């Protein structure tokens, strides 16, 4: 899949996250001091929208049970998270954030 525009770069505050829907997939787009990142928008532990969670540095904390993931690579960073989060390449062009879903499978 080619690059898909998902948000204006300035609509996300630093250390924050928004939820977007692309091809019926729920995604999170993050902005940290290290740049923009994207991942699946639903927690791998139980069904919860991660965009309700708190971004701290490069960590997203799930709003439901406070499991933690690194937004850069999806690695688990705190219980009860045990399965890594799927992340996607991001680029910012002309003030727009683009996400490449690659050959990501169907919506989970």
């Amino acid at each position: 899949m080619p690059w898909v525009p998902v948000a204006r770069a300035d609509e996300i505050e630093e250390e924050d996250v928004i939820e977007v829907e692309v091809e019926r997939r729920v995604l999170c787009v993050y902005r940290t001091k290290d740049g923009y990142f994207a991942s699946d928008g639903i927690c791998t532990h139980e069904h919860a929208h991660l965009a309700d969670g708190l971004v701290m540095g490069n960590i997203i904390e799930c709003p439901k049970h406070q499991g933690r993931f690194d937004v850069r690579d999806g690695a688990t960073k705190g219980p009860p998270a045990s399965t890594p989060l799927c992340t996607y390449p991001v680029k910012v062009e002309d003030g727009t954030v683009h996400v490449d879903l690659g050959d990501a499978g169907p919506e989970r």
Partner: protein
Amino acid sequence: MIAIIGAGAAGWSAAEALRALGYTGKVCVFGAEPAAPYERPALSKAFLRDRELQQPPPLATDPSLGVGVGLELNATVVSIDPRSRTIATSAGAQLGYERLLLATGAECRPLRIPGSELAGIHYLRDIRDARELRAELGPGRRIVIIGGGVIGLEVAGSARVRGCEVTVIEVASQLMGRVVPPELASALADLHRARGVTVRTATRPVAFDAAAQRVAGVTLESGEVVAADAVVVGVGVVPRTELAVNAGLAVDDGVLVDDRFTSSDEHILAAGDVARVFHAGEQRHVRMEQWRPAQEQGRQAAASMIGLSKAYRDIPWMWSDQHELHIQASGFGFEDSEIVRRGDLQQRAGLGYLGVRGGRVVAACGVSVGTGIARMVRAAQTLIEHGAQVDVDALRDPGLDLRRLARRVAASRPEEAVGAP
């Protein structure tokens, strides 16, 4: 060997943390239940609602961390000898330890009234309890729940999902009395009623009625009898301190430990529901009964055992799922605080309350459909952690972005005053 007694949230997270922190010595976890460590919070929610669910989810954050951790299930430690630093198991083994972590948790407080030995009266603490209770639930079954706390109300929601007729009986004048302010408790009571639960507060059960050796009703102090096909008792828990008492450790509503989780014996630590830990922020001993603090205490106790500790100052946080409602709370309670209400249940962000005392946020809680309330409660948790000075009027402003405020507080010095935005 590091011996960990208890394979629940605190015990198992301690074992994983020892490996994650690079400890390569022998670690052995003793679990009294036959099941491998699992997510206990699921027992009152998904496990009761879904008859097909064989097991609650496993309690393992990273399977590689469990490698090389000895896990003895069905294993009861019967005594600790602090002088020789040995433990004795029910299987007759004597094992030496260098450090010992007591993570024995808590057990349900029994309700002792006439008829309490009858069949059909349930408590909920482990998988076996949950299986037995789950078998009682079904369309039209009359389930009477004694105790309008977190467990009772979660069971009420789950039992409604299974089609039961549910009555909740609470002695106190409000539900969830230790967790939420009266206004939210009253809103929650209405929400439960709107979902078909009969909620009765300020009512004391005095006896169980029997029919054919089985519970058939609950008699209230007014003399009224509430008919029941089964009863669930959720009136709190008591810490499992027997091992600690017999070992001569200092115990007072929990094993007393310092802010590094060390007990009155320097080789024995305690964490989770069983521990009453000295909280560096509160400057007093506190005992917590929530899942996340138990995990975090286990992790920090593990660090303490290998000399990497810092003083414990975490702010308690918990969630509860009742019907389709998601509830969260943080802090040490609303006592003597000025209460600020924010939002409402019609909004995604939910209905929340902040408790402010001495110009600082000390407690937060709220309810939402979905996890929207997390935005407020988590931000408040950060404000509580940092002891930030806040302006109560600013908190009342619906336009105030609490998360932005929390981010700014977290980035500044803990004691620095933070005014209105």
